[in-house]
């Protein structure tokens, strides 16, 4: 899938990166301003680390399969 055009893996990386950044940002905001109705295990701040993991994996895919490299 790399012979011509944009690789499917680039789209997946883009999706993970954007979602990761949004979730990381929302997690940080919740950390600074705790919500009125917190979810169970709020103290683990899952949004922060899960968002960070998704963003890092997504960025890795975007870099590895960026169009300028796969064409």
């Amino acid at each position, binding site marked *: *899938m790399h*012979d011509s*055009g*944009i690789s*499917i893996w680039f*789209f*997946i990386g*883009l*999706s*993970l990166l*954007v*979602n990761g950044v*949004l*979730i*990381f*940002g*929302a*997690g940080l*905001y*919740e950390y600074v301003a705790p*919500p*009125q*109705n*917190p*979810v*169970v*295990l*709020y103290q*683990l701040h*899952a*949004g922060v680390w*899960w*968002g960070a993991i*998704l963003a890092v994996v997504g960025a890795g895919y975007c870099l590895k399969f960026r169009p300028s490299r796969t064409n």
Partner: protein
Amino acid sequence: MIPFATWLVLAERLVYLAPVDYAVIVFYFGLVLAIGFYLRGRASTGEDFFMAGREMTAWVAGLSFLSANLGALELMGWAGSAYQYGILATHWYWIGAIPAMLFLALVMMPFYYISKTHSVPGYLKLRFGEPSRIVSAVSFAFMTVLMSGVNMFAMAKVMQIVLGWDINFSIWVSSLTVAIYVALGGLRSAIFNEVLQFFLIWAGALLIPILGLYETGGWSNLKVLIAQRASAEYVHMWSGLGSFSGNPMGIHWTGIVFGLGAVLSMGYWTTDFLVVQRILTAKDIRSAEMAPIIGAGFKMFVPLIVILPGLLGLAVLPMKLTAESAVVAGGHSYNDVLPLMLARYCGPGLLGLGITALIAGFMSGMAGNVSAFTTVWTYDIYRALINKDATDEHYVSMGRWTTVIGVLVSVGTAYLVMQSASIMDYVQALFSFFIAPLFGTVVLGMLWKRATGPGGFWGLLCGTVSSISMWAWVKVDPSALRYVALSPDAKALAQDMYQALWSFLVCVTVTVVVSLMTTPKPDSELVGLVYGMTEVPSVGNIPFYEKPIFWAGVVTVVLIVLNIILW
């Protein structure tokens, strides 16, 4: 702060989304449409539009193969089944899927691939002749488009219950999105989006088991909690299957092994064109064999995001979930367990991703139905019966229009179901019963050269009629369950297993008897279609660790070990 349980009771809907959740969902819709528009220039020939150019790698074909089956209803339904029946539901992911996927990879795929068929009905035409193809194509096309509508309605209903969204809004937005990206980019676009959806489903759902196991204190403690709140039998896969009454599902191990493992799953994973179509797009024979094995490897771990959340719900949710028919005001059904667990652990952003995972699951399932319907309609019905000699360009155009029309018919079905919800049960049940006899016909065609055209046709017809008859018999007279499912204690899932087994046996028996009474095809006409008459191309001179058979062995060993651990 309001405790979680109180908050749920106060809420008019299961969850409330924050602006960041909407941003995640809107980004998803934007991306799938962008992929469709980007790929429209690469779907100009029939091979491109209907078969994605037959250039997919094993990974892309394998993940798409799995994703087409990972629909939202599948995710929510099986999580609900895990809450209701315990870990027994895992059988549908392990013995009820993995052996069949490996059988497809190593035994059946070479024949599908060598024959260069566009579809499973197309293979039946080559092997048994036009009548078998027509029976298979018409029933598949009809049921696929109905199923698509039924799923669309069910998903819109879920969105209404979970998010409070208007049912018409959910139906039209999601179906038009699928119509646009499939009509523009054909099967390639459907496959690209299915792989994307596969990643989103995992990213959105994997947090539930991680946080759930943290909350319960690990697997051992989870088992103790489930034993206290339900029964110790809920966490054993095999030990309660020695009798019909010794497990929550009311099923005997023979039903699981022979009905589910040997017939129903074999039928679904090897002959349902919805999934097989993805593998037919592989770029070479090795990729075609590796794709189902890669799918099987991932399928083995899907219970982590489907079954485990159901079990966790059994252990930690403060309320008792019930059957859909027994839900009282303010209560929830088994099928709500996955959204309830999402709401339990996922804050802003994460909740949006979880809901996106459900929407992605729905859209991948719908795109699978629509693209398979389009191919079967265009090649096996329109070209075979209506317009044999049109140009390739004409068939591509027909494919694009069929995509749009198929989606519109699905929307119509969704509204039909809205008027009469019981249609939903009938359509879903009937669809699964077509699968078992079809498997009998295809597998005999591939492995027994004496099978004849009339044998294949009458076997398929009698097997299908017998499965519908058994289902109707139990509907009219529920006491017939003791004959069909061998026990009056059998639940609906157990009934499906035995019904599949009997209809398969009817199909095989009729095919064998009629074949022995009719004239077989000459050997020269069976080359490329039947085992023993065909030289299966080698995967090439490659190291052992790159060979499909090696990875099939690895998957088998892991499957056996997992079953022993959870015995």
